[in-house]
């Protein structure tokens, strides 16, 4: 098919696909899934950090955390807008999130249990997210690529803030060091899982890479993440909960053990520590907010018709 060939050639040449351009149905569908999941992750991702806003230890930390969570909501907004250019509405996507039909990043199904988790989330979770997202600034779909540019700028700021919290904790009192180590212990494996299973097992990978909506292999990014993070852990004086995690002179990379993939699939199936709570929280917000959305819509309609009557 000539359309499809032209489309692929344009991508190969580094061109951008824009909303009104022809695109294969699979491309559209895959993008909706991917951007939608990413948007949902930003939204659900507010919850584990929101859990500590009311307990932040200083006014400054509270402000930083609030700003961060606000940014995440903003990222959700950009991404829903990007998805909408593909012909779905935000409400459609939201309903699929709330019914459990669409997923969000599994990492947000883990609980935040101490203040150090705010550090670990920034350092590890945002760190892993950035690894995934930086290449996506060059993705083939224009609105998505542009959203990623804005998002990446803010994410790397968040990651630095997270690392800063970890430094304070790691250089703090004995209890703080303990919290920091405990946070690393709990978030290390789940962070490695953020890149997805090995590409060998991944269904969508080859086509997605050809379409440039996936830019690197999962294993490649995971290795990059470990290579970046392991020396940072050392710098913090914390121990990565993996005895095999060592620099390998031969490969020039850090060796590391695979995370517990059984746990990953458990979480995907809905059995993560917080799956139920997260979906309940979002569903409750949506249901409790119905009267507000309806009220504001009704008011806007009244104003419109009053304006039309006056014209």
């Amino acid at each position, binding site marked *: 098919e000539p359309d499809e060939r032209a489309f692929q050639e344009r991508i190969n040449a580094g061109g951008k696909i824009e909303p009104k351009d022809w695109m294969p149905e699979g491309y559209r569908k895959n993008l909706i899934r991917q951007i939608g999941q990413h948007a949902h992750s930003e*939204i659900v991702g*507010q*919850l584990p*950090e*929101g859990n500590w*806003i*009311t*307990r*932040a*230890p*200083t*006014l*400054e*930390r*509270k*402000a930083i955390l*609030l*700003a961060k*969570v*606000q940014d995440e*909501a*903003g990222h*959700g*907004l950009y991404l*829903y807008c990007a998805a909408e250019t593909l012909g779905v509405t*935000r409400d459609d996507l939201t309903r699929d999130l709330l019914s459990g039909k669409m997923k969000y990043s599994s990492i947000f199904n883990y609980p935040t249990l101490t*203040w150090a988790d705010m550090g670990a989330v920034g350092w590890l979770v945002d760190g892993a997210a950035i690894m995934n997202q930086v290449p996506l600034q060059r993705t083939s779909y224009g609105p998505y690529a542009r959203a990623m540019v804005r998002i990446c700028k803010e994410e790397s700021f968040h990651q630095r803030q997270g690392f800063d*919290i970890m430094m*304070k904790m790691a250089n*703090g*009192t004995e*209890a*703080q060091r303990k919290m920091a180590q405990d946070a690393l212990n709990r978030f290390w494996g789940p962070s490695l899982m953020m890149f997805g299973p090995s590409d060998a097992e991944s269904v969508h990978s080859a086509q997605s890479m050809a379409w440039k909506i996936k830019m690197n292999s999962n294993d490649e990014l995971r290795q990059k993440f470990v290579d970046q993070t392991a020396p940072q852990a050392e710098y913090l004086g914390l121990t990565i909960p993996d005895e095999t995690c060592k620099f390998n002179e031969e490969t020039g990379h850090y060796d590391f053990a695979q995370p517990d993939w059984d746990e990953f699939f458990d979480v995907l199936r809905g059995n993560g520590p917080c799956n139920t709570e997260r979906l309940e*929280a*979002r569903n*409750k*917000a*949506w249901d*409790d*907010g*119905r*009267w*507000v*959305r*309806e*009220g*504001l*819509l*009704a*008011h*806007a309609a*009244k104003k419109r018709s009053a304006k039309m009557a006056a014209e």
Partner: protein
Amino acid sequence: MNTPLFEFLCRMGDNTLVLGHRVSEWCGVAPVLEEDIALANTALDLIGQTQLWLGMAGEVEGKDRDADKLAFHRDVWDFRNALLCEQPNGDFGQTMMRQFLFDTWHLIMLKALAGSSNEQIAAIAEKSVKEVTYHQERSADTVIGLGDGTEESHMRMQKALDKLWPYVGELFIGDEVDAAMVEQGIAPDPASLRATFDSQLDAVLAEATLTKPADDFAHKGGKTGARHTEHLGHMLTQMQWLQRAYPDASW
């Protein structure tokens, strides 16, 4: 040391601290994404103002207490926020009604303080006026939109107003601290702000098709600290937890 000035600064700072905390409780669970963002933004501004007011309070006191020390290491009786600020969020309507009532007072107050004889206060007020102007526009719009929305949203907003109304009067009750502030040209007489407040309130309520309650009974005891509501203590268990549990840590 200037005790009435310290008290006055705590009142300003505790209002923003306590209301900022309440607003931040909404994080991630607002009715629409845009509201999540707006509420976080409001909370953020209020926390920022808290740093300025309580920071200055600490300086004025001269006992080596900074804004964090004041925020996280006082118990209920030392808090000086108006009772309105510590009232629970309730539904979104109650939260926005509380915000509108507070914002409207807050903006009038800050505009007056922008002309304070105390330059530092005038500067804090001037900076805050910009933020609070936006808060007040937003909360007024929401009160109007929901008051004049559906039957349900109207009913909920009227209920919110009826419930919060008894906490409005305290904002305008003066005492010896206020008298000292007036005398020094630092701050206005609280009662003098009422007429402007009422006229702005009446205009918004009219557009929102809401009825101002007839009974003007006013609860008090927040800004003097004499008797807060039971809600504040529960808020502090959360807010101050880490500081109380790990007093030697720095964060």
